[in-house]
């Protein structure tokens, strides 16, 4: 401030006394200016006032004027489901901004409005992007072959049969996949080829060889639904996706008997202690993250757990940096502290009451003798109690507790009470005044009787003893001896689940035998904070403190401690064990089913809130039941021949305390067994066409089911999964829409290319040696390549999937169609609307499938006609099928009884010439047979009449007189009218039905909305909050925030499990064999020992092509969600490419980068037995040593160079991964461990992989 001192006092005075400019020179210039222009200058020389001259504004005003503004959203699997304003000017979509009209959350909470993130704001770029698919495309080689054959033969189906039947022509077009050469075709011709392939496949191989894949219906319900309906009505196979994406937390069906039900994001605000565990909320849940940030102002404590310094750690009060994949150990140690301090040293009343009422902790478990100790066995059930006679229905499914006097009793609510007439009104959680014993030692007459039990542990380092010949691949496992108080009940030695839980967690009590820790700092035995420190690197004091705080907060706040968990902990091979350890924490602290508490798992936008209506529409349940629904992982494992390379021995996963039932078997054998027992679905099912089977039975004069059973018995019929490489068992047609299986979810990408498609691939593994091959599957010496005859993909942008497809169809984008959207993160249902008509030759998904259906129907007149189809359906969850396996005891050499020891066999009619008419009309079964969702039956007689009036009736043809479903809006109306969440009458009706079954009052949750029914115009107007419905486990009643299981906790409705309570303990034979009856720590798979992969951290030469002379390092390879994309969507968007580095990148630590001499942004090559990927290195201190991240779903369309390792272009993040099956995911036919679509199935996990990285030549070719 020189001007204010010294000689310049005059200036300083003028500054201080009156507002001036920059000094006398500026003043005089400005004063001069008054004479040089028109307009009036203000006294203080700061402003000038002019008349007019605003012409220049016009440009900017024009820029922000639009011809229309349309509401739509983004059908992308991000869980956001934000509503957007889309602007159109001169027929061109200009951009989008966030909608602000979300219904209010109420006065006590921040609002949802506004929602949206940079990715969503970039979407309109796609409408006119260079990669937009504008026309139908067919690969030139195929098109020429087809045209030639059709010209000669005169019939599309015969032409297709010839091309695919001739090995020469088939090889010609299959080997050209992914090699470019897509040429424009007319809609008519492209549809004809696709239809011919369908008709030929159904006719020759059977309808279950037609396969459809389209994930996450919630993100665009009708677009998914119409294709799903198309596949279902044809008799084709729809693949599951939730388990295939490894987004399904298998622990949820295991513990809750529920696919996944979680609080909406506004409920985070209600939490006072929030742990973000493997979920990077600001990055992956961007529009919802504000609730977490805002809750911090309310005093919420935030703790993050992640191996890297993730973005969410910036918001956290504490960050626990855990070694990748070891989260389970940390959760167990926290559980150890909670059990010890809150349930043993001091019995926290709230926790004790919750445990007794809402968990299985008080149930009795029979102990089985083993050597000099005992091992936990099965739940004690009513059939074992004296005085139970045969008249008691389902006695083997009624589990037993001890009452306060130590007398056994059968509480209400187990699965045995769920289905029989006799137990109507008893399926509830009412303990009827009894106070069950949590521990045997609590009995008034407890005599101090206790026994030693053996429990498995999997955290031990493999020792030399296990490295002997033949055992080198065995997993490392050990035994820990503990003790429990016991009692003899009905002649059986039993203890409670709670007693076993304390033993498992290493929480000692005086007088019990076994090895117990001396304190939290005792690392010598599993369960303690110090023990976990050796595994996770989290200091034991921190683990103990956070565990204690979590529980203390739950006690103080009545259950408002929450764990927000995600893909970081859910995509591991053993993630079910990790999650069970998390869920144990929220259950033992009484947080589950409480607003602001419990688990909050957001992986995949899985929540179709109008579930029942969606099911009717998408699965075609109005015309034919049941549909064919397949576990995606199981399907791809066989179809892509990954089983030939796997050879993972199930025995290596088994507990040392097991009975050896997995000995000499691979996980592939487990898949076959599961399919044959009807546990998991299996499509293609048999090695003969399911249409021909019915004809053959008729020819033999037999009932079809009987004929099939006999043929299976005499070996003349086999399951396809026993010989997936025989041509008659190949899947033939794969229809992909709304999906990017090769660019996003295809674990084992290179195997897909090689075996499923027959395209060039970079598979580096060798097939299993004879000793490691599955014993129950047929081995062909040479593996088939190019199993698929047709891969057809509908996608509005060119992706890794479209470039490998034979036919590419151009669908509408999300701004060009009518549809519905819901998510688990907010309770609203809202709409897609067309801002413009689909440009170029694009059509909506709805129209595409109707075009294809019309062609198929036309060709069916001569080629298919009306056929009978035998559907083999798995044992279903939420039905009496779930009682097919008493005690979860797996018996061998059982008679084949459909629906009990093998799949149900159902014969249905397929009227192929009427197929298109059925697709576009609501069939009769919806009203005639009702609609069943999660065991609740709805009777929509009124609604079907209403739809007839609303949509109009079909005038003529096979579906004459039925309500029309001929536009996407008709379909939206059907979904809305037939769901309890959008139609109060059905919601109330469902609750009334549930009242009869449970005997508790529920209908009031919905009855105040009984007269409300949303139609499509309602959801076009603004997002509409859904109504409370028995389709879900929580309540929005009275405007409260949705949280899962509040109905169970507040209204005593049972969970859909064996006991009706949340399960700590699982007693199926296979769970016992795996040693996973209770939450347990299982480390990431040891890929070195199992598959001879490199050891993490090793810098030894791998010998890979081109690696000589380069330093190499082996690292854990994780593929988390990206900041600049939603899966593969947006990663090719110019705006997002500009914000990120663009193209494939791998994040690595400076330490690892030093080992191989790589600097930031240099090209590296990453490879393991599965394939190779080329990327640029991002060297960042964010990363821990020994672990790299490659954001998943990097399409091979952006900046992917030729790899030195393979000499081929490409590689995606999934080139380094492969499918690995866990046997416990394959269990079925037993209580909550029963199949339902996307509810249970093997996960497509991929986190356990290890890769070798080296610097490559910085000169890259494309």
């Amino acid at each position: 401030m020189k001007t204010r001192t010294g000689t310049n006092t005059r200036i300083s005075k003028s500054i201080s006394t009156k507002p001036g400019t920059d000094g006398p020179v500026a003043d005089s210039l400005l004063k001069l200016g008054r004479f040089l222009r028109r307009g009036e200058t203000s006294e203080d020389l700061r402003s000038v006032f002019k008349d007019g001259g605003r012409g220049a504004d016009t440009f900017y005003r024009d820029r922000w004027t639009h011809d229309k503004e349309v509401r739509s959203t983004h059908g992308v699997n991000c869980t956001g489901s934000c509503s957007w304003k889309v602007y159109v000017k001169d027929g061109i979509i200009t951009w989008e901004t966030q909608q602000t009209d979300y219904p209010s959350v109420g006065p006590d909470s921040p609002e949802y409005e506004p929602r949206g993130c940079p990715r969503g704001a970039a979407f309109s770029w796609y409408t006119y992007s260079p990669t937009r698919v504008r026309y139908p495309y067919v690969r030139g080689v195929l098109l020429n072959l087809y045209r030639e054959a059709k010209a000669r033969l005169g019939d599309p189906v015969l032409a297709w049969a010839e091309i695919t039947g001739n090995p020469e022509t088939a090889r010609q077009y299959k080997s050209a996949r992914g090699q470019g050469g897509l040429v424009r075709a007319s809609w008519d011709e492209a549809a004809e080829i696709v239809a011919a392939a369908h008709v030929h496949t159904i006719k020759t191989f059977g309808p279950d060889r037609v396969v459809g894949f389209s994930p996450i219906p919630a993100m665009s319900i009708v677009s998914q639904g119409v294709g799903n309906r198309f596949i279902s009505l044809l008799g084709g196979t729809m693949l599951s996706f939730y388990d295939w994406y490894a987004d399904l937390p298998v622990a949820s069906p295991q513990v809750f008997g529920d696919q996944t039900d979680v609080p909406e994001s506004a409920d985070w605000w209600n939490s006072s202690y929030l742990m973000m565990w493997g979920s990077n909320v600001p990055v992956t849940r961007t529009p919802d993250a504000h609730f977490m940030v805002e809750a911090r102002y309310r005093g919420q404590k935030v703790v993050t757990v992640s191996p890297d310094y993730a973005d969410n750690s910036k918001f956290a009060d504490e960050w626990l940096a855990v070694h990748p994949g070891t989260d389970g150990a940390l959760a167990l140690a926290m559980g150890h502290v909670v059990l010890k301090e809150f349930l043993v040293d001091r019995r926290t009343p709230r926790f004790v009451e919750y445990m007794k009422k809402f968990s299985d902790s008080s149930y009795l478990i029979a102990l089985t003798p083993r050597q000099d100790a005992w091992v936990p066995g099965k739940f004690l059930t009513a059939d074992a109690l004296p005085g139970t006679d045969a008249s008691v229905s389902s006695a083997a499914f009624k589990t037993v507790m001890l009452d306060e006097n130590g007398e056994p009793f059968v509480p209400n609510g187990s699965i045995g009470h769920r289905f029989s007439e006799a137990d109507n009104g008893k399926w509830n959680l009412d303990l009827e005044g009894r106070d069950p014993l949590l521990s045997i030692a609590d009995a008034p007459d407890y005599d101090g009787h206790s026994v030693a039990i053996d429990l498995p542990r999997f955290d031990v380092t493999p020792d030399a003893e296990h490295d002997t010949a033949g055992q080198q691949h065995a997993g490392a496992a050990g035994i820990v001896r503990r003790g429990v108080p016991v009692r003899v009940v009905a002649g059986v030695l039993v203890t409670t689940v709670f007693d076993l839980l304390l033993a498992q967690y290493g929480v000692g009590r005086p007088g019990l035998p076994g090895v117990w820790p001396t304190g939290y700092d005792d690392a010598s035995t599993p369960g303690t904070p110090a023990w976990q420190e050796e595994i996770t690197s989290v200091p034991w004091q921190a683990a103990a403190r956070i565990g204690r705080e979590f529980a203390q907060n739950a006690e103080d706040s009545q259950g408002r401690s929450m764990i927000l968990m995600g893909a970081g902990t859910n995509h591991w091979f053993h993630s079910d064990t990790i999650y069970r350890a998390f869920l144990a924490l929220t259950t033992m602290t009484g947080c589950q089913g409480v607003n602001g508490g419990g688990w909050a798992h957001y992986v995949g936008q899985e929540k179709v809130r109008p579930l029942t209506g969606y099911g009717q529409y998408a699965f075609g349940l109005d015309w034919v039941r049941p549909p064919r629904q397949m576990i995606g992982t199981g399907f791809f494992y066989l179809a892509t021949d990954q089983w030939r390379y796997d050879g993972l021995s199930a025995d290596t996963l088994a507990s040392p305390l097991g009975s050896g039932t997995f000995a000499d078997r691979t996980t592939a054998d487990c898949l076959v067994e599961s399919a044959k027992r009807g546990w998991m679905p299996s499509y293609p099912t048999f090695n003969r066409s399911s249409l021909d089977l019915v004809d053959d039975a008729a020819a033999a004069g037999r009932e079809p089911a009987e004929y099939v059973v006999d043929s299976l018995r005499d070996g003349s019929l086999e399951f396809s999964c026993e010989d997936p490489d025989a041509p008659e068992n190949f899947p033939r047609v794969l229809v992909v829409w709304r999906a990017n299986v090769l660019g996003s979810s295809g674990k084992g990408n290179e195997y897909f290319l090689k075996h499923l498609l027959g395209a060039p691939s970079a598979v580096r593994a060798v097939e299993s040696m004879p000793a490691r091959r599955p014993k129950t599957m047929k081995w062909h010496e040479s593996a088939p390549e190019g199993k698929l005859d047709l891969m057809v993909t509908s996608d509005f942008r060119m992706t890794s999937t479209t470039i490998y497809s034979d036919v590419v169809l151009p669908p509408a984008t999300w701004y060009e169609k009518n549809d519905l959207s819901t998510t688990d993160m907010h309770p609203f249902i809202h709409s897609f609307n067309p801002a413009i008509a689909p440009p170029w030759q694009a059509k909506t998904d709805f129209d595409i499938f109707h075009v294809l259906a019309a062609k198929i129907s036309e060709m069916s007149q001569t080629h298919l006609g009306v056929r009978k189809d035998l559907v083999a359906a798995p044992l279903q969850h939420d039905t009496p099928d779930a009682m097919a396996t008493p005690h979860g005891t797996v018996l061998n050499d059982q008679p084949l009884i459909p629906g009990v020891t093998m799949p149900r066999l159902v014969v249905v009619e397929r009227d192929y010439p009427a197929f298109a008419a059925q697709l576009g009309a609501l069939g009769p079964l919806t009203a005639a047979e009702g609609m069943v969702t999660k065991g609740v039956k709805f009777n929509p007689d009124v609604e079907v009449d209403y739809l007839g009036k609303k949509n109009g009736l079909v005038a003529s043809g096979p579906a004459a007189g039925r309500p029309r479903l001929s536009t996407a809006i008709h379909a939206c109306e059907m979904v809305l009218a037939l769901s309890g969440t959008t139609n109060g009458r059905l919601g109330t009706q469902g609750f009334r039905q549930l009242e009869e079954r449970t005997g508790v009052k529920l209908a009031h949750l919905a009855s105040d909305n009984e007269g409300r029914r949303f139609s499509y115009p309602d959801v076009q107007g603004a997002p509409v909050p859904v109504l409370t419905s028995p389709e879900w486990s929580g309540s929005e009643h009275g405007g409260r925030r949705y949280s899962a299981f509040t109905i169970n906790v507040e209204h005593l409705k049972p969970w859909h499990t064996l006991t009706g309570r949340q399960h700590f303990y699982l007693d199926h034979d296979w769970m016992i064999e795996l040693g996973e009856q209770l939450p347990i720590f299982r480390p990431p798979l040891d890929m070195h020992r199992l598959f001879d992969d490199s050891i993490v951290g090793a810098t030894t030469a791998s010998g890979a092509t081109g690696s000589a002379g380069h330093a190499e390092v082996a690292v854990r390879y994780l593929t988390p969600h990206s900041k600049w994309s939603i899966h593969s969507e947006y990663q090719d968007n110019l705006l997002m490419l500009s914000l990120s580095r663009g193209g494939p990148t791998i994040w690595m630590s400076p330490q690892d980068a030093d080992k191989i001499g790589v600097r930031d942004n240099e090209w590296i090559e990453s490879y393991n037995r599965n394939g190779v990927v080329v990327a640029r290195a991002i060297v960042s201190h964010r990363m821990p040593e020994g672990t790299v991240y490659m954001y998943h779903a990097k399409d091979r369309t952006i900046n992917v160079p030729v790899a030195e390792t393979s000499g081929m272009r490409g590689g995606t993040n999934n080139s380094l991964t492969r499918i690995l099956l866990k046997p416990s995911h394959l269990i079925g036919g037993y209580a909550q461990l029963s199949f339902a679509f996307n509810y249970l199935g093997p996960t497509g996990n991929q986190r356990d992989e290890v890769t070798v990285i080296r610097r490559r030549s910085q000169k890259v070719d494309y």
Partner: protein
Amino acid sequence: MTAWDYLLWVAFPYAASGVFVVGHLLRFRYDQFGWTSRSSQTYENRLLRWGSPMFHYGILMVIGGHVVGLFIPKPWLEFFGVTEHMYHLGATWLGSFAAVLTVAGLAILIYRRRLTKRVLLVTTVMDKVMYVFLASTITFGTTATVLYQIFGGGYDYRGSISPWIRSLYSLQPDPSLMSDVPFFFQLHVLTATALFLLWPFTRLVHVFSAPLGYLVRPYVVYRSRDAPRGAGSRPPRRGWEKSERPLERSRK
């Protein structure tokens, strides 16, 4: 006097002037948002901080010199007592100083434009063409000055080039004045004329938008609506004029 003389010293300058004037009008009318100096400061500023002021102050001095030398007739200066010797001293010394500044500045700018990758990437074809003509004009002018004024005996362009230019403006073009002018002066004049011809199509239009007005303008400018046209300032499009309400009409 050949046809070439007429072509080079009459037709070409007039054509260039025409294109210069009409070109600017059209550019302003149809490409107002392209009317810019295309600043590359965000891509590189360390070289620019030296090169740009050197060049711009230099070229301003050069332009000033040209105005004095070309447009003010010799007798007028002599009337004010500026003798031939004084003029020559001024032109040579001040001119050389300006030339050194300009040439050095330009060299820095060209070096920067060519060798800074980010700047090269935003360089258009017209930019490159412009640079060729600007650089040659300056080079030839400097060469001529050095050759003839400093090392030669001195050439009095005020007796040939200057009257020729003034003859163009008085619409009585006299190409003969140029026929005996030394070669490098001729080249200098020709490339300069070509530069004027290209001017409206290059970033040089920014010369007319030099932000001199800011020196004398308050920093807040309020503009009232031009006329009560309703919302916004856009004139109603044909066919979309506001209709009068019946009441208003009946009052007329």
